[in-house]
């Protein structure tokens, strides 16, 4: 469409958020500490947020940005609940290592 390249190409954002997302995924797989894993999940969510905002800019549409609020809200709620569950679990098993969580199997 444009004869002159202006601003930042959209796919740069796509690639950046893909990278961040993948790092998040890797973190989830890489670590045993539940808290770090949560944090990696948060990283994934943020990568998605970035992409949302980029697309919002692409379409010139505010709803993408609004969605980011909801993502954040959900993230906050999840963290609250998640950490509460973590604490309960810690009380039972005295550890946040996910590899000790294998009483249920088979």
């Amino acid at each position, binding site marked *: 469409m444009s004869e002159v390249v202006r601003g930042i190409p959209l796919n740069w954002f796509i690639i950046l958020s893909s990278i961040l997302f993948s790092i998040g*995924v890797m973190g*989830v*797989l890489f670590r*045993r500490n539940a808290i770090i894993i949560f944090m990696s999940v948060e990283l994934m969510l943020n990568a998605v947020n970035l992409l949302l905002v980029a697309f919002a800019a692409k379409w010139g549409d505010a709803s993408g940005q609004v969605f980011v609020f909801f993502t954040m809200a959900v993230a906050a709620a999840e963290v609250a609940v998640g950490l509460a569950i973590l604490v309960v679990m810690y009380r039972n098993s005295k550890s946040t290592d*996910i*590899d000790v*969580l*294998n*009483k*249920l*199997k*088979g």
Partner: protein
Amino acid sequence: MTQIAYLIPLFPLVGFLILGLLNKRLSKSVAGIIGCGALLASFCIALGIFMNMNGQPVEIMVAPWISAGSFSANFAFLLDPLSSIFLLIITGVGFLIHVYSVGYMHDDENHNIYFSYLNLFVFFMLMLVMGSSYILMFVGWEGVGLCSYLLIGFWFKNKAYNDAAKKAFIMNRIGDLGFLIGMILIFKTFGTTDYLKVFAGVNGFDSTSGVLTAITLLLFVGAMGKSAQIPLYTWLPDAMAGPTPVSALIHAATMVTAGIYMVARSGVLYALSPVSMTVVAITGLITALFAATIALTQNDIKKVLAYSTVSQLGYMFLGLGVGAFSASVFHVMTHAFFKALLFLAAGSVIHGLSGEQDIRKMGGLKKSMPVTYMTFLLATLAIAGVPPFSGFFSKDEILGAAYSASPVYWVIGVVTAMMTAFYMFRLLFLVFFGEFRGDHSIHAHESPKVMTIPLMILAVLSTIGGFIGIPKSLGGGNAIEKFLEPVFKNAESQPSLAGGSEAPEIVLMVITVALAAVSIWYAYKKYIQNKEVPAAEGTKLPALQNTLYHKYYVDEIYSAIITKPLDKISGFLESIVESKFIDNIVNKIGALVEWIGGWLRQLQTGNVDFYLFAMVVGIVLMLFFKMM
């Protein structure tokens, strides 16, 4: 008269039902009267029909039976000269044997059941000969097999008897399968199994096609089973396990001649198939010779008679095979007289000796059992073909026909006749002449009147029965041939039966009689003059004699090639094919699922790490394959 023909089988059937259902509630004498009375009534009607027979077949429809699709069969009877002769033989000889049985079975606890079986047998036998279609013949055919089974195994506590009964039934069944298939082929070819329609259909039938040969050969397989021809004859000697009157009635006079009846009845079909005719003739011939050789060495009085029966049946088939249908039927009749007589007389001997059947333990019974002796002698003369006894005429007619077909047939036939004369006189001499060799605590005694009177009647018939068939060459009118002519005229006029050299009948007759006389003389020399007695059990015999004594080991061979392998196969199929293979596949599928289940369970490690990995790998694969 013919309108009430359905009563002929009905009487025995009713007799059977009354005796069978009321059983022990009837006294023995009442049961005997019912049993015999039923037969007598049937005989009277049969006689009436015989008298009124004008040669035209009469079909009497009684009731519809099966109709399915294009197939239909009715309960309908066909009365013609052939069936009327058989009716007479069956009801007449049957009646005599019933009467005889009253005495013979008097002390048996299952007396009433015995008579009910006999009545049932007569019923089926009548169905066999009166039925107007092959399928109805088959009903009787199988029915008499059943009764034979029941009566051979009448003393059911004895395992050997039961085995004999089972053997008889199964061997008959083998033949029956042939009959059944043949019958179906008839239906397929002619669209019906009614005799009259089938025979009408034969006219203009292309005789060069193999269908008729197939039909007739298949039917003949049935005849082999029922009439104990090679290779299905081994049941008949074993069938002597039954009470002796049964042997007389079923295994000598009537049932075993069913095969003859059937081939004679189908004469039109056979006559159109030279191949079948040859097969019938040769089978009959070989059987006649073969059984006669075995009979030479047997020591059981009933076994000798049994092999003699097989041999005589062979004769009859020879007659059929060479196209002498009426001669064979004639022989059936005379054979019924003298063979029934022989058996009944033998029964009288056995009865008198309290169950002894081994001829080595008999001897000298002439004095103690005069009536039995006399009748036995007459019968022996008849079977040996001594003129003017009945057997002479019928046998001679067959041999004459055989000669015109092929002199070889005649030669073998004559040899067989010589053997017959020999072993019959051997039997006669060993049983009634010389010294008593048995257990002296047994006092042989003559049988009661109720048994001897039938003997006497049969003796008369054996003696004079042949006169209705005196051939033209001897100046007779051959009444029976004339009587049967309407039935066989189509068959005997077939081109395949024409030709052959005109036999010099008188010459042949003389030769035959002379040779028989030589045999009798030889037997006399051996057993009367030299007082030879057959070797005791276990004595080493010369090879040939040994082989004959053991009946060519046919039973053993059958056991080795059929019975035992079948059991083996059965076990193999069950334990290997069934459980190790077919069922195992089914079960293994279940086991496989369980096994995979155990393996898949390992996947559920309980480890979140692994779960997450699985998820991500799954996603990567999903995207990867979709993007490619």
